[in-house]
């Protein structure tokens, strides 16, 4: 049994492809990194400071799975950096969007964040999942096949409904804000840059 487990682990390492897309709404592998496009805060130009970035633009959208329509949980839209370039991701935003700051976050670090409500510490609240993009063509919802669409994924656990039960309003706010701050700090730690316009 141990032999088979080790063999499977080895084969995963040997044949692991960074550009393979997983099943819709399933977790991303820990080794992946994701991109997030954000609006540069005030101090970015002066100090390179990005702590004030707003990582709260959650999306909940209908997406198309292989079998039927599934409702994706509210998520912060991100892009797998081995599948989508920042320029491709930018094209999915509205025209002339000010979100030109490219942040890079590691999936394993996102999942390891522990959030504090002020009373209790909660681990593993955030998850990064594949979220297939869809587009409407002639009134029909089909999977988006534009360049870079494959890398679309989402960070879940940041919305009001994902907080553990039994918390007061204040504790819920603390928890969500703590998660957001720690995400911003993770983004500050890794390399980030602004896209050429």
């Amino acid at each position, binding site marked *: 049994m141990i032999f088979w487990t080790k063999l499977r682990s080895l084969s995963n390492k040997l044949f692991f492809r960074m550009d393979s897309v997983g099943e819709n709404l399933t977790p991303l592998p820990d080794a992946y990194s994701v991109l997030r496009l954000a*609006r*540069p805060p*005030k*101090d970015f130009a002066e100090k390179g400071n990005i702590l*004030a970035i707003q990582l709260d633009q959650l999306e909940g959208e209908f997406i198309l799975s292989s079998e039927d329509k599934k409702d994706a949980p509210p998520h912060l839209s991100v892009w797998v950096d081995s599948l989508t370039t920042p320029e491709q991701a930018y094209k999915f935003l509205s025209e002339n969007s000010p979100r030109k700051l490219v942040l890079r976050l590691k999936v394993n670090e996102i999942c390891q964040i522990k959030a504090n409500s002020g009373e209790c510490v909660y681990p593993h609240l955030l998850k990064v999942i594949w979220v297939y993009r869809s587009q409407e063509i002639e009134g029909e919802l089909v999977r988006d096949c534009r360049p870079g669409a494959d890398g679309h994924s989402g960070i879940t656990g940041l919305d009001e409904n994902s907080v553990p039960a039994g918390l007061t309003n204040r504790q819920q706010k603390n928890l969500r*804000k*703590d998660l957001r*701050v720690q995400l911003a700090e993770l983004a500050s730690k890794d390399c980030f840059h602004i896209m050429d316009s």
Partner: protein
Amino acid sequence: MTMSTSSFKEVEQEEQAIFLTTLQTSPKNSSSTPVRRMQYVPSLAQRVAESGNAEVRKYNPLYPRTQINMGSRIYAEQLKNIDEDKVRDFSREIAVHDVYEWAKPIGHQANFIKSDPKERRGKFWSSPSSDLSKNLPGTPKKVEAIHPQQQRYEHLRVYLDSLKNEARVTGETEFSERVLNLSWSVWERLTSLFQARGQWLEVPDACPGSKNNFMYTWSKSEHYLECEIFGTGEIEFFYRNRNTGEVWGDDTTLEQGFSGDILDKASLFIE
């Protein structure tokens, strides 16, 4: 304008003598003290030059004025490097006045902020004594200098104005002019409370959000504080200690004002 060099020196030496007397006898709250201190720089340079110190080049009257305009704090720091008894005495004198300059009464600081930017920038050059310089041949042009904190204060204002323009022009922003106006009011209220205590609150980083919200953040070593302002008028403060993981939060509105806890947390970010 036809004044010879020697007569000019005489005038200047006379001016220095007056200044030295004033520096030692005038009350500490004299608003003219900083101006006079600036005028003192060339004369000190000459004194050190006479004693043959190579460092004099730094204090040459023709040395770019910006170095001097950065304030007496830097000036006093530079003075420490000159190992001469005479200079040491003068620098101590200047340093004392420098400390006083930063602990000026609150009213003065508030007016300083609210006054016209041009007026503020010209502060050190507007006294009658500094006007002497414009009569001198070959005097370097006056260079405007602003304190970094003052500069950041103005940057925040400009940043909010640019966002307001964006909201007006595109009409498609995820934030309203109202939330930007409210954010400025929050900052002004907060900073004025600290000024009333004679303290300067660091100018925060800032960024608008997607839910008609705007956020200020302060970060210093392990301390992190944010103030999130919503278009509805709600203001949420959140603190996090990076070392201990401790978190704290409090909600308020501009009408309710800021609680003692909020001010305690904000006071971690005093300059």
